[in-house]
């Protein structure tokens, strides 16, 4: 070791170390960027009002500071909101053009049903049908009015529920008529007439309730609040359309924290708004979870059985080699090829046949012959089965041979050995395979895009309507949500925070699952350390 470090090749060691560093830094950067951009969005940022040198004003959240292209001048990006008044959400203002910048306590931010956020000052309230204490200060009156409106709205919602029950009933009768008409034959005409008779009162009820709900909603919408922007332009809005009202400059840190939690809860539990760029992710989360669960239902048994075959039953030979290579190839086939296979085989092949056999009356409208959660999950199952096989096989291989021999020598059959000994011992491995496959499935998007994922599903694949599981329905998915909102939405810049949050959520789920799998595997490795593997 008397040679110089350069001769020893230590600098090359450093080079390889740098490669590893780049790899790790890239990972950390990716996770960091997603966290920084995703976590901060819900925190209510202060509202700045800028008076400009030319006499104009701008009000909003300060989102970015940047050098302008000419020289070293600062410019500031405001999220000015009020899309219905200004047309654009963001505005760049040169720092030099700003005369004063202040943060008034009564600056209000409104989240609305449409047109994005509004930033302004409360001007007045016009309450037509709800009563609130007139003695309260205006902002508190607004809050009280919102509560009152919300209460009435819930009543309308329950009315809407019976409307939708009616509409389901109508759809059921319509399909029954369609079926009778298709089958034809004696008595079909009578049956149809009877069903038509049944349909009439339901339709009348539907119309009446629908009209009532609409009338009550219109009445409720006549309660309005008027806000003025920084320049004094006023906008009258129905109180019902205000999703959230807050004055960030007047909020304390605990209040902001509470607000933050409220937003997170909304994210997890509410439906999306504004073509998915605001509101919650509940249908996408639900769709992802249900997809993954259905997928596991198909892939875990098949994968475990195949692994058992390879490890415990098959004699080493050409067949086993072929199976191994096939499994390995399945893992390497591009996911889009699985997608196109799913489309050709499951959707058009199996689905089309099911439609012809069981739902011929609905054709040419497809029932199963179009993308749906069942086909997407089957496609994903095929895609993740190699993961389960490989991991389970490794777990079985790690079990010392003595255990098998002991069991067989005591007179147990092979299956008994498998069932009572090997599988329980390999259970952590099987669970690892399960977790890894769910992680892979949760993050996979390309095959779903052609087998049934949609940007906005009208109904969840699981609900209170018979038969509860609607495997033919299309569904939403977190990964697709990222692609769709980030790339297909009309206002990408305004949608970006939502995409980051969705990304954060998906990343948390997938990485969380992977970490669980890694921990499980490591604990298992320790158990039989030094044996096989």
């Amino acid at each position, binding site marked *: 070791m008397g040679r110089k470090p350069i001769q020893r090749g230590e600098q090359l060691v450093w080079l390889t170390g740098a490669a*590893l560093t780049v790899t790790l830094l890239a990972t950390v950067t990716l996770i960091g960027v997603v966290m920084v951009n995703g976590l901060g969005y819900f925190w209510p940022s202060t509202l700045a009002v800028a008076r400009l040198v030319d006499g104009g004003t701008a009000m909003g959240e300060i989102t970015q500071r940047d050098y302008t292209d000419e020289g070293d001048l600062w410019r500031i990006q405001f999220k000015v909101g009020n899309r219905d008044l200004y047309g654009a959400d963001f505005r760049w203002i040169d720092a030099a053009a700003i005369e004063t910048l202040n943060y008034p306590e009564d600056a209000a931010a409104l989240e609305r049903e449409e047109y994005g956020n509004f930033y302004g000052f409360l001007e007045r309230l016009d309450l037509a049908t709800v009563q609130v204490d007139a003695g309260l200060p205006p902002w508190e009156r607004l809050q009280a009015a919102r509560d009152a409106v919300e209460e009435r709205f819930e009543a309308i919602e329950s009315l809407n529920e019976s409307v939708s029950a009616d509409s389901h009933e109508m759809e059921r009768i319509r399909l029954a008529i369609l079926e009778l008409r298709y089958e034809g034959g004696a008595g079909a005409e009578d049956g149809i007439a009877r069903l038509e008779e049944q349909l009439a009162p339901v339709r009348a009820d539907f119309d009446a309730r629908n009209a009532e709900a609409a009338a009550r909603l219109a009445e409720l919408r006549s309660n309005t609040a008027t806000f003025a922007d920084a320049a004094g332009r006023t906008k009258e809005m129905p109180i019902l359309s205000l999703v959230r009202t807050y004055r960030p400059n007047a909020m304390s840190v605990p209040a902001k924290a509470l607000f933050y939690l409220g937003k997170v809860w909304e994210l997890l539990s509410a439906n999306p708004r504004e073509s998915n760029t605001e509101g919650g992710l509940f249908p996408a989360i639900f769709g992802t979870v249900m997809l993954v669960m259905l997928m596991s239902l198909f892939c875990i048994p098949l994968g475990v059985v195949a692994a058992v075959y390879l490890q415990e039953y098959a004699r080493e030979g050409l067949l086993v080699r072929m199976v191994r290579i096939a499994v390995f190839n399945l893992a390497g086939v591009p996911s*889009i090829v699985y997608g196109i296979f799913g489309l050709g085989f499951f959707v058009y092949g199996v689905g089309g046949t099911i439609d012809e056999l069981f739902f011929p009356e609905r054709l040419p409208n497809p029932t199963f012959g179009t993308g749906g959660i069942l086909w997407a999950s089957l496609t994903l199952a095929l895609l993740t089965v190699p993961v389960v096989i490989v991991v389970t096989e490794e777990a079985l291989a790690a079990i010392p041979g003595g255990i098998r021999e002991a069991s067989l020598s005591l007179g147990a059959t092979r299956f008994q050995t498998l069932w009572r000994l090997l599988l329980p011992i390999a259970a952590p491995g099987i669970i690892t395979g399960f977790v890894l496959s769910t992680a892979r499935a949760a993050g996979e998007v*390309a095959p779903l895009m052609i087998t049934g994922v949609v940007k906005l599903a009208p109904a969840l694949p699981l609900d209170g309507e018979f038969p509860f599981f609607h495997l033919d329905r299309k569904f939403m998915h977190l990964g697709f949500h990222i692609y769709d909102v980030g790339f297909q939405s009309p206002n990408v810049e305004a949608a970006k925070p939502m995409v980051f949050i969705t990304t954060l959520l998906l990343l948390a789920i997938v990485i969380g699952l992977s970490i669980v799998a890694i921990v499980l595997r490591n604990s298992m490795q320790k158990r039989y350390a030094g044996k096989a593997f």
Partner: protein
Amino acid sequence: MQARSATRAKRIDRIATWTITASGLVIVGSVVGILLLIVNVALPLLFPPDSVRVQRFSPAWLGDPGAVLAIGSDGYLETGYVLDTGGVFTFFDSRCGALLERVRLERPGVAGATVAGVEVSGRLDHSLRWSDGSLTVERVRFFPQFDPEGQRHIAHAVERLTVLPPAEGAVRGTARVTEAGGTAAVFLLPGNRLRVVQQIVEEDLFGELTRESASYEIEDELPGAAGPLLLDGSGRWLFAGTDAGYLLRWALTEEGPRLADRVRASHEGSAVTALAMLIGDGSVVVGLEDGSLSVWFPVPAEPGSFVRVLKSIHTLAPHPAAVRRIVASQADRILLTVGEEAELRMHYPTGERHLLTLSPEAPLLRAGLSLRANGVIGLDAEGRITVWAIDAPHPEFSWKAMFSRIWYEGFEQPGFVWQSSAATDDAEPKLSLIPLVFGTLKATFYALLFAAPVALFAAIYTSSLMDPRLRLIVKPTVEVMGAVPTVVIGFLAALWFAPLIEDKIIAIFLFLLLAPVVLIAFFVLWERVRGWPPLNRVKPGYEFLLVMPAVLLTVVLSVAIGGVLQDVIFGGDFRQWLFQSFGTQVDQRNSIVIAFALGFAVIPIIFTISEDALIRVPGHLRAASLALGATRWQTAWRVVLPSASPGVFAAVMIGFGRAVGETMIVLMATGNTPIIDGSIFNGMRTLSANIAVEIPEAPAGGTLFRVLFLTAVLLFSATFLVNTAAEVVRERMRKKFGRI
């Protein structure tokens, strides 16, 4: 009792054995099944088009077959018609031959005039030349109608579009009603002269229609006796063929006719016998006396020139004898050519594909193509009408169209183009797979250029040089990296990374230059200070913790110096400078972004597999090498790496397979333009992204749908080969080290 339970156990055991073995086979089956299914969907592309004679009848209502001038059919092969010299359109049910209706045309001039000649253009516009010299254009129309029971039947009508009085002394002539509603007619006068009669309809700014009439004689001398004459759908171009084998083209401008082209269609001087325009009026099809067929369209006289000249672009399968008539489908680009002895051929010009040849037993007097090019109807001398159904669902497909350079209509030169759909029906589908294959390989190449060295070096370091305790943290971290969904990588690459590096491209190149310098500087510094406490407690194997600040410093330095360089050398904007100096456009979503993003997705795979292979190298090899006095780098580089090289090779192959098939990242971060350009500053479209982009728009069973499945077969086979090779190599290596 015990015996029973034992038999039961045995039975269960047998069942389990079967089930388990069966499911093992299911796995093999499903791999084969996937391949078979996608091949099966793509396969119909290769089936040769088929023709079936569906009907033959000798209708009693048909008089002299020789008097029939034209025959045709609707797009459903339900209603046919014949036009005879008496000026009567007879519509009949082409499923049974029953007479439906006779429509007698009003004679335009002299009473008792008969029809002397007919030419069909556009969607069944018949230009009739009457015996008194006047011309009329009659349009036959078919419209499907649905009665209350949902039954479809085809209604028909004949509409007279225009009447032109005889031109003095005209030998023959043809007329066409233009898309704007005007007319154009050309008459052949005695002495081989041509006269053009035009009625131009123009719409001014206020939507007022002005009609202008013009009539002039063409002064240019024709090279040979005039043969077929052809007007295009706009009425602005006149084509003529001569018996000396020349093809002429005039622009019928407001100032008069201008001879635009005078080219030899036949070098042997064989006469031009038939002319027709392809759908969209962009190309003219020329048939010759010697049976040869070619497709011509105007192209720049020389590269970059604005002057367009006619050029023979496609040569179609020739007839054995003279070409008599050419019928261009108005539904797609299919051509029906009628040769001497009534041999019928169908062609698809783009890929120069000869679809099929129909050989009727008796020579046909007249033949016509159905409106949707799905059938051919013909009349023979014995008065028999024959209907063939043509099954050519994928005429656009041919290996030539997929993989060769093709000169597409309206293009300046031949090229590889993927453009599967367009705004208009008459557009030429361009289905070259070359740009997609090129894009795939380009993305993979740049990604591996970044990922393979990084992943391999990292794997060498982790397996052989790093402290084993750190390895327990590093490996899971890389596995987490591998778990990051590709949609997340793609999103960040496109919407965060691409805009971020847009004006810092120099910094990236600087990083590559600076990294070794900074690293060496740090290394030298470290060698000087490592002896001092407390630094002397840092053991070998922890270097990469020291490398981290060096890498970070390099990043900061590159960005800072890059900014300065950009201002000083490149005038403040590197992209502009590059464009002005080299004409290279820098796209925001370029190959640099792809290299990093796709590389990010591939690194964990290459890392994990090669690290596995490296760590599998038996410890006694290392120990022996170190004991003989080799340094740890020499041991890693000259002993461990060569022993594990098959596994490392397999790792790169698998990384390659993954990069080739990756979809979401390239879909989001490449811009998806199917161009052939190896530049690192622009994007590409890959096979996988192409499937994702186009399959939702492709009607099931159509050519595009099947071509996309064909690309899936390509992807599958490419990854299958690579993966199988890698797995075989890996298996060998496992065995090899199993024996040691």
